[in-house]
């Protein structure tokens, strides 16, 4: 376990080194204040972290975590039940498949009018987008469960609730985590967009505000902070998956 963790850390360090080198080269080649070299950008990041970045980082993190939590809490149970209830699925699945491809991000102005410019419209927009991604995945995962797994548990006298607890939920968990990791990237992107359009808080606002002030150092520090938020979120999901689905890593 510690060996694989060590290897993982080593992999991250190597990737980071390559990334920084590529950044340095790109900055040299472009030679524009809009792309500062990593040394000065990281110095700015360190200088601004506590006074300017951290408050906005916390606001952004709150928005994205709240949205993903709300979306998961509704979409996952709903998707699992749909996937295991053919009659309900026959009614709702067509609606879901009609609504899923809609680019929900266009609702941003509507949410801004309805919910003001605080946290609510941002959380609502991210929630809607992540909701559909999770709903479709959980439904498909629940549908794909082999009937023999369900039959053998039912033959033991399991109730419907027990079939969900012992079979449906664990069987769908790996797929749900995959969907969550993909959705986490989408969620951060939507967060950035929604924060740039309205309000005076969050990393998205900070980045665009710095851009407007032609403070490219500040802008880049904000970009680094937002990137770190994405990485942290992804790692959090990875850790949760490691903890909740230990059986997926046993070899044959």
């Amino acid at each position: 376990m510690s060996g694989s963790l060590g290897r993982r850390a080593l992999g991250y360090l190597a990737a980071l080194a390559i990334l920084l080198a590529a950044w340095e080269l790109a900055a040299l080649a472009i030679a524009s204040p809009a792309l500062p070299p990593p040394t000065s950008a990281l110095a700015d990041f360190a200088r601004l972290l506590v006074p300017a970045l951290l408050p906005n980082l916390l606001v952004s993190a709150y928005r994205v975590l709240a949205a993903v939590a709300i979306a998961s809490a509704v979409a996952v149970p709903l998707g699992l039940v749909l996937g295991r209830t053919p009659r309900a699925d026959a009614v709702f699945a067509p609606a879901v498949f009609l609504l899923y491809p809609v680019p929900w991000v266009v609702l941003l102005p509507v949410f801004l009018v309805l919910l003001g410019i605080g946290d609510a419209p941002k959380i609502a927009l991210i929630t809607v987008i992540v909701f559909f991604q999770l709903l479709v995945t959980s439904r498909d995962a629940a549908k794909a469960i082999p009937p023999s797994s369900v039959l053998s548990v039912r033959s033991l006298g399991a109730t419907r609730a027990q079939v969900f607890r012992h079979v449906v939920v664990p069987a769908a968990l790996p797929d749900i985590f995959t969907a969550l990791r993909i959705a986490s990237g989408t969620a951060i992107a939507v967060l950035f967009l929604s924060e740039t359009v309205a309000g005076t808080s969050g990393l998205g606002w900070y980045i665009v505000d710095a851009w407007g002030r032609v403070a490219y150092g500040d802008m880049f520090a904000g970009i680094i902070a937002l990137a770190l938020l994405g990485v942290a979120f992804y790692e959090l999901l990875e850790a949760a998956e490691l903890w909740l689905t230990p059986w997926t890593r046993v070899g044959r």
Partner: protein
Amino acid sequence: MAAVEARDVSVTYEGVDRRVHALGGLTLELADGEPIAIIGPSGCGKSTLLLAIAGLLRADEGSIAVGGEPVTGPRLRTALILQDFGLLPWKTALRNAALGLEVRRVPPAERRQRAAEALSRVGLAEFATAYPAELSGGMRQRLALARAIALEADLLLMDEPLSALDALTREDLQGLLLELWRSRGHTQALVTHSIEEAVFLGRRIVVLTPRPGRVSAVVENPGMGSEGYRDTEAFYERCATLRRLLAAEGAFAEVPR
């Protein structure tokens, strides 16, 4: 008491693109503690019969009773072992063995103890914390048996439980099944494709007709369970008899389905 009585059982279910008439008026009785083997051409409704006895499938016509009680749903002491063993990949061997007890809300300490006993009974004591993916095919089969033992099942229904195993493991587990039956005395119905397996593990061997399945013949096999039965003249004779009966049912013909 777990005598099984199936009378004129007919089952039709919706297949992918047509209605499947799986069982057509099948009548079968198992005495309490009797081990039988069920054999027949593929697609003769053998699995359907087991699901109906297990209470997972409703018969359209006829009646099924276990221990004198009509079957209306899963019964507490009936254990069903399917071809893929029905193990849950996300539970360790111990928790898989304890699953039936957990479903029945047996307190944790007691179910751990009973599951651990069942695991050692099938030779898996050292693998309590292993996941099914870490076990060999034969060990998974043993684990499925441990689950039935932990439940104190008095009726064991098995649907081709050994067909996925290699020849040596298969023979080993046939021995384990026989030994478990001898020591526990449960009623047992084993659906199999293998003539030798049927003769080794069935005191009576029930031959089914092609779909819709009915009983075509019953071969009495009193020598079953005796020491070294596999090597006796009687064993070979039974196998030959069965092969003839199955050929008459078209089991060896290439029938386009």
